């Protein structure tokens, strides 16, 4: 497998997890979570600290990253989001409150990096996590393991939402909170769980991302535009759309830019960040509800000559 494709696959899987988390939190609590950035960075620092101080491969620490991300989500929910939701805060207020939380987390990250630098004599501000990786079937293990982690996690999430009582209650609350409340579903618990899963997905995404790009204290901050782009591209009203959107944006950033630079020359590389965003903008112009709003079945029918028409 070409190295750029392998990196693209890891990065896209990471972005799918992170973007899915953003969509989940938006659907459940109307909150664009800016703290996703630092939660992702903390996910990276969990696996970095584990690998350096605890030993073993970074994958051992992925569950811990998820748990810590979930804990940060709970803190955000009870400390900020819940009180604001109770006061019926508008979306912009909810969003800005998470930005404040993100800045606090960023400061904590910087303090932690200072501790690692000055007390542990480590070099935590620029880390290539790939050095802790190993080879599997002739490629870096991350190329195989991380897409698998993403698939397994997202399948488990799907089964949870579809097959368990709490999952069904969660979907019901997301779709119609008033009706769900009237049916005796505890919306508070549902929202709290959404923050656990959303925060966990951010941390998991950040941990996975650091296997493809350099880990820095601003890893999440630099990637947050793409996380949001993935969520919006996929469609903010569909969890699966958000996940798919993240994956497509991630792959475009690598595969798309690589192909374009081969055709038009290396100057295209300067527009690396613009190309996936351009794709997102173009798609939203045609399909305003994102990937999830595309009538795939009708598209396929039309493609094979059956009449039906496409409604956007």
């Amino acid at each position, binding site marked *: 497998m*070409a*190295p*750029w494709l*392998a*990196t*693209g696959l890891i*990065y896209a899987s990471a972005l799918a997890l992170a973007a899915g988390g953003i969509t989940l939190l938006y659907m459940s609590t109307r909150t664009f979570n800016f703290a996703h950035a630092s939660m992702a960075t903390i996910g990276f620092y969990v696996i970095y600290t584990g690998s350096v101080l605890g030993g073993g491969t970074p994958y051992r620490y992925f569950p811990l990253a998820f748990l810590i991300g979930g804990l940060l989500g709970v803190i955000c929910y009870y400390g900020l989001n819940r009180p604001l939701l109770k006061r019926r805060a508008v979306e912009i207020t909810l969003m800005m409150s998470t930005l404040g939380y993100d800045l606090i987390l960023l400061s904590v990250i*910087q303090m932690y*990096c200072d501790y690692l*630098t*000055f007390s542990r*004599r480590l*070099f935590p*501000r*620029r880390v*290539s996590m*790939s*050095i802790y990786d190993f080879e599997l079937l002739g490629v870096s293990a991350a190329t195989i393991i991380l897409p698998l982690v993403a698939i397994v996690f997202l399948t488990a999430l799907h089964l949870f939402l579809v097959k368990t009582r709490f999952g069904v209650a969660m979907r019901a609350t997301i779709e119609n909170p008033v009706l769900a409340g009237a049916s005796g579903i505890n919306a508070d618990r549902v929202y709290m769980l959404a923050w656990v899963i959303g925060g966990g997905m951010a941390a998991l995404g950040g941990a996975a991302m650091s296997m*493809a*790009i*350099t880990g*820095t*204290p*601003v*890893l999440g901050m*630099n990637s947050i535009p793409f996380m949001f782009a993935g969520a919006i591209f996929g469609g903010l009203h569909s969890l699966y759309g958000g996940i798919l959107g993240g994956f497509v944006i991630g792959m475009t950033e*690598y595969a798309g*830019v*690589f192909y374009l*630079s*081969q055709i038009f*020359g*290396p*100057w295209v*590389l*300067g527009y*690396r*960040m613009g190309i996936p965003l351009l794709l997102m903008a173009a798609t939203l112009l045609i399909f305003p509800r994102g990937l999830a709003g595309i009538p795939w079945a009708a598209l396929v029918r039309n493609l094979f000559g059956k009449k039906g028409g496409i409604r956007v």
Partner: protein
Amino acid sequence: MKKKLLAFFMFSLIVAAFAGSGCPRRAAPAPGPTEHTVVALLPLTGALTTFGENSSKVAELAAADVNEWLTKNNKNWRMNLVIDDCATDPPTGLRKMTSWHGEGARFFVGPMSSGVAREVLAFAGANSILYASPSSTAPGLAMEGDWLFRFCPSDAIQGPAIARLIQEAGVEHLIFVWRGDTWGDGLQKATADALANTAVQIYPELVRYDPGLEAFTVQAALLNDYVGDLVRKGVSVDKIGIAIIAFEEIAPFFTAANAHPRLRQLAWFGSDGTAFSAALIGDPTASRFAIDTKFASTKARPEALVAQSNYERVAQHVYQELGRVTDSYSFNTYDIVWSFARAIDEVGYDSAKVKEILPRVADEWSRTYGASGHVVLNAAGDRAFADYNILVVNDKLVWENVGYFDSRADLIKWTRPIY
């Protein structure tokens, strides 16, 4: 009731705050020396982290030495050194400078990168802020009359040093890859210009990348394609070289390049942005790649040590604090702090007056005490002369000095030939 209580509490808090802040103003000024603020605006995060950390420790040492000297000589002022992070990011650097200027600061040590130095240039000029960079080398910033001093030489000298190194390696076809910022653009141009009348041919496709980039698989794949193109045209691999002008993103770049065996067979050339990179040494794959490709980086060579040089003290201090060998720019940081101190002591905390006398003060002070050697600044406020050390990563994963470029003679004097 609850709301009333809260309102009363808030009101009391505001009254207390105003009352508290008013008290000291009414009281007589406290006796003791005046504090003058000098801000060290350094890249503690971002692509120049190693250099920023080194220089922050050196700036602290210099400020402590300055204050000890001021105390010993019964001076009526003390230096208040503040260290802040510009994140190797131009907008962040400007925001921080604006903020500190609002607090009354007029003297800045740093920023270290030319990109940040350029970003703050207009603001500094408009507000009479004097700043001195230990490491900004972009030729485009060599301007007379501005408020920027640079205690390092311009890349107008480093470009020919890298060009000479490339010729010494026997390279006939060179591929350029560089970070697309003020510094990278300037040094790439200076190197390309120096190669213009030589036998070295520059590959027509130029790989200029976004300075914020953290993954380089696409760039590495393109370089591999270009090398493949040259090989198909009959060029021998040992005649192909790659000049990379980067900061500490060199480590992930080499990790990405390592996936292409052909790129491991070429000679790679770096610059002062990569020499002494702790990130490179700390990455086993990248450091192995650097050893295999004889990755040679240039770095301004400290001048001959002066009589009471602080060179060893500075080096030992950084080693004790951070457990690593410091870089040559950190010695410039020491001299900047001291030059500011001596100048402020002479004419007061007045940036316009200090600007006038700084070259003379730096020249006089560094003749005896300078950590980086004797500091002579030219008309543009940049260090006037420079030779460049050639640094490679050796098998013990240590940056080793294997020779130096003599700028006056335009040749490399090897202590351990590597080609």
